[in-house]
């Protein structure tokens, strides 16, 4: 109870202290406002020398997906684009936005996948006839983009950049379309329809050339020899001709085979024999079924450096598919630059608001330091020590209101960030609560530590401001952590600020935040708070 009485008293004093309100609430908002207005669109993002390819995906996909492609063709193309070295893919949500960006010279070219892109791609084929009617998109300059439902919106004032992007689009489309068409064509080689068509063609070859029949003689000879050697056939002979007749036929068989051989080698005879037989008759359905796949295998074997069945560029060329395509794909935020005078909703506020929320959380050192100094200066600390209170109660009575103020500050700044600057709270807004709380714990710990060292208002101001600014600079509160060199980024983890910023970065900047990063950051912040408080407890002299 005495702790609560002390805490409420200090809370009341803090609320009446305009300095605290200015430092903890107003200053960060003003700084965010000024920087928000002054900084450009790319603030906080590493300079990216990769080529940006912007796309609008209106593709409605296919009604049903076979084994390949298992997703809309536009996704296949975008995967290829974002998997290409030195290219980053930016997905613009709608065509109107793309046209606005082109009109404002913000993009040189935007690739638009029309709603029927997948359907058109699905029809791409080397075939002349098919159902649905095949589409041959290949032309002199590569893929005729319009034929497959791709439109390039180009800024006429940036012809060079537009041309580069168009070439990139061409290469990608070739990499997608050609293996697809080859694969589909190869599937047809040796299939039933193909073999049927082949047989139909051979049907026209009539009479069968004598040379073909002559070459068939060894086969006929083998067939006869095998037939007469078979006991079942011997039985069939005996049944038909009796034992004597069957033996007679078998005895005469060598002469008969010799006679057949002579007949097959008689070209004139064979020409007459084959008059009414077409070549296609040899291609019976059973033969076609046996031959077809072997034809396909043999072709594949002949061109073994390629996989004609693959239907993808990586598969066709037997090269490794590129990994990490997802990382190279970003979604264009329509309000990245913000709207209105304040540039509300601009992406930079996703960095500025948490940065200054964290940095100014630690300005609590001034408030808490002054609270102790004023208590000493007004002699009231002496009164508290004379009262029936323990040291722990006095310190806890100071700590609680400071924690309350810090929590209020954190939530206030995030709320102001949303209401004033239109920032997003990310996909897991409730996770901001533990981050604010753990940051406050660390800030209160540090504030108590500073209060234990500084004895005068000047000392509080000097130690506190210096500490806050140095830690803010080292941690990346003053400049985006993303822009820091990696060793510096690692070194900055000695500050609680850096951990808090990493947690905010996950929650406010990553559509799919890594919760382990957030959890770890919260635990480390609590650790910082505990260590700071332990040092303050040991160091703080109330006398």
């Amino acid at each position, binding site marked *: 109870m*005495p702790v609560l009485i002390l805490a409420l008293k200090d809370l009341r004093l803090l609320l*009446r*202290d305009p300095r605290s309100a200015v430092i903890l609430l107003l200053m960060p908002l003003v700084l965010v406002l000024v920087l928000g207005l002054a900084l450009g669109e790319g603030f906080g993002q590493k300079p990216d020398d990769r080529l940006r390819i912007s796309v609008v995906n209106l593709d409605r996909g296919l009604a049903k997906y076979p084994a390949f492609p298992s997703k809309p063709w536009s996704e296949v193309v975008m995967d290829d684009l974002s998997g290409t070295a030195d290219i980053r893919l930016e997905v613009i949500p709608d065509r109107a936005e793309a046209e606005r960006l082109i009109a404002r010279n913000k993009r040189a070219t935007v690739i638009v996948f029309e709603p029927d892109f997948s359907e058109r791609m699905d029809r791409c084929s080397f075939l002349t006839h098919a159902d649905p009617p095949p589409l041959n998109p290949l032309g002199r300059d590569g893929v005729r983009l319009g034929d497959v439902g791709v439109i390039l919106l180009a800024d006429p004032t940036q012809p060079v950049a537009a041309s580069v992007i168009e070439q990139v689009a061409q290469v990608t489309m070739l990499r997608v379309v050609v293996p697809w068409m080859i694969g589909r064509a190869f599937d047809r080689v040796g299939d039933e329809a193909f073999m049927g068509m082949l047989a139909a063609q051979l049907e026209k070859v009539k009479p069968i050339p004598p040379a073909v029949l002559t070459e068939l003689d060894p086969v006929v000879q083998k067939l006869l020899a095998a037939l007469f050697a078979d006991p079942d056939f011997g039985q069939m002979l005996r049944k038909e001709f009796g034992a004597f007749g069957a033996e007679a036929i078998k005895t005469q068989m060598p002469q008969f085979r010799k006679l057949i051989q002579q007949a097959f080698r008689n070209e004139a005879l064979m020409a007459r024999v084959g008059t009414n037989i077409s070549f296609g008759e040899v291609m019976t359905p059973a033969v076609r079924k046996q031959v077809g796949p072997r034809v396909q295998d043999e072709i594949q074997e002949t061109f073994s450096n390629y996989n004609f069945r693959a239907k993808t560029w990586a598969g066709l060329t037997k090269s490794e598919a590129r990994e990490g395509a997802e990382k190279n794909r970003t979604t264009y935020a329509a309000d990245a630059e913000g709207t209105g005078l304040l540039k509300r909703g601009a992406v930079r506020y996703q960095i500025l608001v948490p940065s200054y929320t964290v940095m100014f959380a630690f300005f609590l050192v001034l408030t808490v330091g002054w609270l102790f100094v004023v208590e000493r200066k007004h*002699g*009231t600390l002496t*009164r*508290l*020590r004379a*009262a*029936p209170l323990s040291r722990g109660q006095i310190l806890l009575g100071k700590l609680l209101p400071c924690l309350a103020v810090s929590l209020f500050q954190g939530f206030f700044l995030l709320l102001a960030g949303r209401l004033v600057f239109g920032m997003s709270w990310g996909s897991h807004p409730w996770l901001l609560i533990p981050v604010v709380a753990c940051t406050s714990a660390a800030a209160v710990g540090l504030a108590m530590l500073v209060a234990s060292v500084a004895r005068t208002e000047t000392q509080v101001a000097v130690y506190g401001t210096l500490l806050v600014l140095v830690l803010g600079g080292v941690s990346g509160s003053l400049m985006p952590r993303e822009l820091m060199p990696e060793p510096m980024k690692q070194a900055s983890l000695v500050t609680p600020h850096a951990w808090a910023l990493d947690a905010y970065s996950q929650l406010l900047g990553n559509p799919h935040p890594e919760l382990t990063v957030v959890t770890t950051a919260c635990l480390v912040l609590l650790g910082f708070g505990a260590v700071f408080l332990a040092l303050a407890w040991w160091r703080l002299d109330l006398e």
Partner: protein
Amino acid sequence: MQPPVLEVVGVRKRYGRTIALDGVSLAVGAGEMFGLLGPNGAGKTTLISILCALTDTDAGEVRLFGRPFRRSDREARRLIGIGTQDLSIYPDLSARENLRFFGKLYGLRGGELEKRVDELLSSVGLSDRAGDRAGTFSGGMKRRLNLAAAVVHRPKLLFLDEPTTGVDPQSRNHIFEQVKALNTAGVTVVYTSHYMEEVQKLCRRIAILEGGKVLACDTLPVLLKLLDATVRVAVAGAPPGFADQLAAIPGVKSIKPAADGFQLVVDDAAPVLAKVAMTCAATGTELTAVSTREPTLERVFLHLTGRELRD
């Protein structure tokens, strides 16, 4: 003296090489108004700090209400009130909020607290400024509020350390009245000051502290007895043997000639003076001037310490 509520036995305190208290011993009886007199640096505040559990002793013992008193003894601290030398009120809280806060710290709640706060505001003359922040008060008003904050929890033993520092005469009188009223109500008061007249006016028993030691501790009349009175007479036409006649007056301890008459050291100036006048008349000596010098606490202090109180 009533049974002591406060006993200090051989208390020593040192800050580095400076000896603040050097074996201080004294006792204060229940309901007593006790003065602690000494110049700046005499050790008064150190002693008060020890008695209020703000500082530890290096040696010696403090007994409060018959029991040894230690800093950790929070229950005993509830019985003590302290009016510090420096103000100890929150300037950003109103007079009422200050009193409420200190009252709550000592366990007062609800109606009892409100009644006590109203009572104190009235008694220190701040009822009409109860809602104003203490920071806007004059020095005297702050002192009065400081006194009220010291007694809000009805302490049995009140330490007042220079409670009138920097206040106007009106507020000083107000504070005096309050202290007297508290004492009348049964609160034992230990009053420290370097204003001799305050101590002389308020306290029945006084301890004179200097250099960390108690030089004397007793009632005021006994302390004054440490010094004699002086009667100085200027005469003209005194006959021979006049000095012997003066020396023979009862109550005259010694006599020595002065430039225009004699200086007599006496127990009590008034009766001796009458006798001197009668002797002059009887011998036809013209008494041209008379002056007396009674013992005062200031002279006692000078006598004991060898220096003025405000040195």
